[in-house]
């Protein structure tokens, strides 16, 4: 600990703890609404089709059915980046695309009605593979995207939004190299984070043009903003946030679900609830983007990367909402981990007839590095370089720079993470276990152990804007007014701690508002590990502002200068004179003190997570067992130790490390159906298969806000997958280049079964 804080750095009870363990926290689906209707979606059984005719007469006659909407009777609302995907279209682009929306008095009736709708389809040829999709003559998904290449650039990131990395002199870079490798690798298994709580929304439309939506998303203002673009600015949109039953980045944007409820409420005049089933959640909500990279890398014997050229293909499925943003952030992040003066990395985002990819934690960087690190590894292997030393050498150091998502060049002003890396390596026993490339660290009978290491960090910890109000009641209580929902990290409680520290007030006297976009000020939400620095800064400065106002009122009463005042436990006094104190209420019982805080983006700090893994591979069965994980990071200052531990342990699930071992979305290449869209067939880690996890967390003060802390939660999943690929390759003595490392792939690599290429590449 850097400073003797009262709350910061200490384990304190989360303010929703009792509600969680007694089942009284109200997630969206737990809230009661009067006069509620229930929605169901009729979905396309075909990956690509045109609706020729819809007969809904039978369904409409079913008692309890209140509305059936199809492409013919809805407004021309479109979403996506750019906005070309109609909310209900005539053209269907994936198995699960929306054909009709039904509202009825019960879920059962809505479901029955959906089975009574007769649809005649004209089936169109479909394409599922990104490389096939860009070939001449391939089926085309949109007139707007010739060759199935989605328009590059994410408008919110500005006109120079990063779409490639181009700098330096490629000829010179490759000429300086002592080894040049070229290869292809993919992280193309499109795993699904699958939070337990399904996506959903409740909407109430009021004529002529107001809609109130209850959401289970990370940031109600982002919902409002997104929907306003889609519904048109003349629609007044209020959003109310609820605790989120897991998001992992997926519940940043849920515009379709919210728009479905809105349209049905508009058609019926009643509140309408839509909650996806788990099957819909997996088959028709958000997947990780698919990533493939072809690259040429030049490297020197000392681990200096002299040049990187190549192409990164991002598969986005049937449309893109955030893929351009992920691509921009990924390109920034790859520079943070790889110091290199000469880049020519081009990109394409490709659409195919499958469920869409969207926002997921790791946001582009995880996808890119999982493909890039295996290619870098081949160069390291040729030079006999230890990957840990490579990572340590090449990770950004203070004073170095990078192009970030907006296309601007930023100079990094954070700390050197080498010490955290060293401490992690020590804890893991890297030096003892690393035996060289393609060398197992241990073997026993048919079992081979192997180790791997990966790294990830991003400059998103200071992205976007946050605002907060801190209201003081002079009887000595405080309310933080924020639009943030609790999505599992415990950050709402952490802001209470930060405010408690600024105002030196018992935590029990600090309350936090419900989350909405009606009264609470703007916040981009807890994404990209920005919660601690960006959102924390807004909360802190709102508390400081409120304190300043309080002191301005108290100074004349105490006959002291504002700068000399202090407050502890609701009492104000001049420094060193606690005996001459007044309670806050002495400034007047009839007043509201409202502090305002704002954070503006800062891309000059980055976090860093290094993950070491050890696996054991059974060369007879091909089974890979994860035995041991060490995560090493430096957070500047821990805010809440158990909360942080939870975030770091999260490295396994939500399409993190396990997406390299067994998690994948399996699409039937002939029908386009997702074959494992349920929690039995989609594999997940159980309690009885837990590896050991050890988290090494350093606290080197970082110039962020007054607590000198930064967030790392989002990136915990990201370094692991490529480390697994490395570890398994080392264990079995041959290169793997596809995720996940299923027994089939392991045995194929060992030449024990015939391989079936489908989701990766070749080096």
């Amino acid at each position, binding site marked *: 600990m850097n400073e003797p804080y009262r709350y910061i750095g200490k384990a304190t009870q989360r303010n929703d703890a*009792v509600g969680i363990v007694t089942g009284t926290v109200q*997630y969206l689906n737990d809230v009661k609404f009067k006069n509620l209707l229930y929605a169901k979606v009729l979905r396309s059984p075909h990956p690509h089709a045109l609706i020729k005719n819809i007969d809904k007469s039978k369904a409409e006659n079913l008692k309890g059915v209140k509305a059936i909407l199809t492409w013919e009777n809805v407004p021309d609302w479109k979403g996506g980046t750019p906005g070309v995907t109609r909310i209900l279209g005539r053209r269907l682009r994936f198995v699960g695309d929306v054909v009709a929306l039904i509202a009825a008095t*019960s879920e*059962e009736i809505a479901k029955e009605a959906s089975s009574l709708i007769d649809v005649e389809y004209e089936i169109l040829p479909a394409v599922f593979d990104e490389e096939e999709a860009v070939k001449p003559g391939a089926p085309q998904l949109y007139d707007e995207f010739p060759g199935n290449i989605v328009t590059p650039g994410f408008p919110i990131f500005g006109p120079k939004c990063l779409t490639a990395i181009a700098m330096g002199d490629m000829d010179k870079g490759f000429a300086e190299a002592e080894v040049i490798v070229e290869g292809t690798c993919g992280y193309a298994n499109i795993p699904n984070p699958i*939070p337990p709580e399904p996506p959903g929304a409740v909407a109430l439309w009021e004529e002529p043009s107001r809609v109130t939506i209850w959401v289970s998303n990370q940031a109600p203002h982002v919902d409002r903003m997104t929907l306003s673009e889609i519904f048109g600015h003349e629609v007044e949109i209020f959003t109310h946030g609820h605790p989120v039953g897991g998001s992992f980045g997926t519940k940043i944007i849920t515009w379709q679900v919210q728009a479905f409820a809105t349209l049905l409420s508009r058609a019926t005049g009643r509140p309408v609830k839509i909650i996806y089933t*788990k099957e819909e959640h997996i088959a028709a909500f958000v997947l990780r983007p698919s990533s493939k990279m072809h690259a040429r890398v030049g490297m020197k014997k000392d681990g200096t990367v002299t040049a990187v050229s190549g192409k990164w293909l991002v598969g986005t499925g049937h449309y893109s909402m955030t893929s351009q943003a992920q691509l921009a952030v990924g390109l920034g992040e790859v520079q943070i981990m790889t110091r290199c003066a000469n880049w020519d990395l081009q990109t394409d985002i490709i659409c195919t007839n499958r469920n869409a990819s969207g926002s997921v934690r790791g946001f582009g960087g995880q996808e890119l590095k999982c493909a890039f690190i295996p290619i870098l590894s081949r160069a390291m292997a040729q030079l006999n370089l230890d990957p840990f030393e490579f990572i340590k050498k090449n990770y950004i150091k203070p004073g170095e720079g990078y192009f970030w998502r907006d296309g601007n060049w930023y100079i990094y002003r954070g700390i050197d993470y080498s010490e955290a890396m060293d401490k992690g390596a020590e804890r893991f026993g890297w030096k003892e276990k690393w035996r060289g490339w393609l060398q197992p660290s241990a073997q026993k009978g048919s079992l081979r152990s192997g180790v791997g290491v990966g790294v990830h960090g991003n400059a998103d910890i200071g992205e976007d804007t946050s605002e907060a109000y801190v209201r003081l009641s002079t009887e000595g209580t405080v309310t933080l007014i924020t639009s943030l929902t609790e999505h*599992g990290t415990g950050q709402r409680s952490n802001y209470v701690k930060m405010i408690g520290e600024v105002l030196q007030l018992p935590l029990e006297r600090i309350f936090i508002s419900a989350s909405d976009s009606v009264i609470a000020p703007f916040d981009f939400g807890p994404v990209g590990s920005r919660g601690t620095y960006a959102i924390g800064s807004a909360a802190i400065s709102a508390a400081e502002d409120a304190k300043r106002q309080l002191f301005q009122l108290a100074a004349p009463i105490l006959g002291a200068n504002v700068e000399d005042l202090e407050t502890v436990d609701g009492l104000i006094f001049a420094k060193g004179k606690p005996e001459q104190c007044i309670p806050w209420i002495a400034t007047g019982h009839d007043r509201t003190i409202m502090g305002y805080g704002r954070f503006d983006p800062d891309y000059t700090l980055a976090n860093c997570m290094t993950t070491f893994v050890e696996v054991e591979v059974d060369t007879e069965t091909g089974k890979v067992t994860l035995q041991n994980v060490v995560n090493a990071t430096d957070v500047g200052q821990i805010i809440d130790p158990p909360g942080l531990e939870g975030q770091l*342990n*999260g490295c396994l699930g*939500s399409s993190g490390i396990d997406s390299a071992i067994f998690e994948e979305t399996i699409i039937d290449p002939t029908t386009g159906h997702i074959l494992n869209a349920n929690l039995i067939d989609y594999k997940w880690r159980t309690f009885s298969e837990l590896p050991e996890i050890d988290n090494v967390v350093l606290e080197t003060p970082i110039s962020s806000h007054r607590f000198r802390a930064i967030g790392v939660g989002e990136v915990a999943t990201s370094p692991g997958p490529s480390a697994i690929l490395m570890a398994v390759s080392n264990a079995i003595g041959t290169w793997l280049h596809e995720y996940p490392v299923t027994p089939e792939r392991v045995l194929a690599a060992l030449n024990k079964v015939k391989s079936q290429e489908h989701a990766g590449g070749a080096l």
Partner: protein
Amino acid sequence: MSDITVREKNKKISQAKRVTLIINGEQRNLEIGHLPHQVETTHTLLHTLRETLGLTGTKLTCDNGACGSCTVLMDGKAILSCMTLTVECGGKDITTIEGLKDRDTGALDPLQQSFIDHTAFQCGFCTPGIIMSAKALLNENSTPTEVQVKEALSGNFCRCISHYQVVRAVMAVSEGGA
């Protein structure tokens, strides 16, 4: 048909039209039928708890027997309420997460308190199911080993990875100690 047989038959019908079970210590006499306040023969216990009785602490995730979110106790043992039909629960004693507090004092169950003390949750959506599975284990075996705890919870899906903190929380109330 004699009067007596008709009476008997009517009695049977009226009996068949209700299902009586104990939920969190309270006897509930639920009508079977098609009205919103009634229980359909197709309703799962999960549906009845959440939609008919408003006990929303029990969570729905997969509705398919795969994730353990909907775990409740039936006569002290863990069951999946999404895989159980309400009409088959006649005479059973059901405990949900809402009923785990001490019924007289309102104090939290030591297991609930231990989950708080160990921050054994992140988003908390899986937590009620995990607590009920752990409670069932402790009912049967008050001194489980860590391996037994993990085994008992292996049907509970947690995507945030609260597992490590959960195991510590359960072990802390195991009478054998950690």
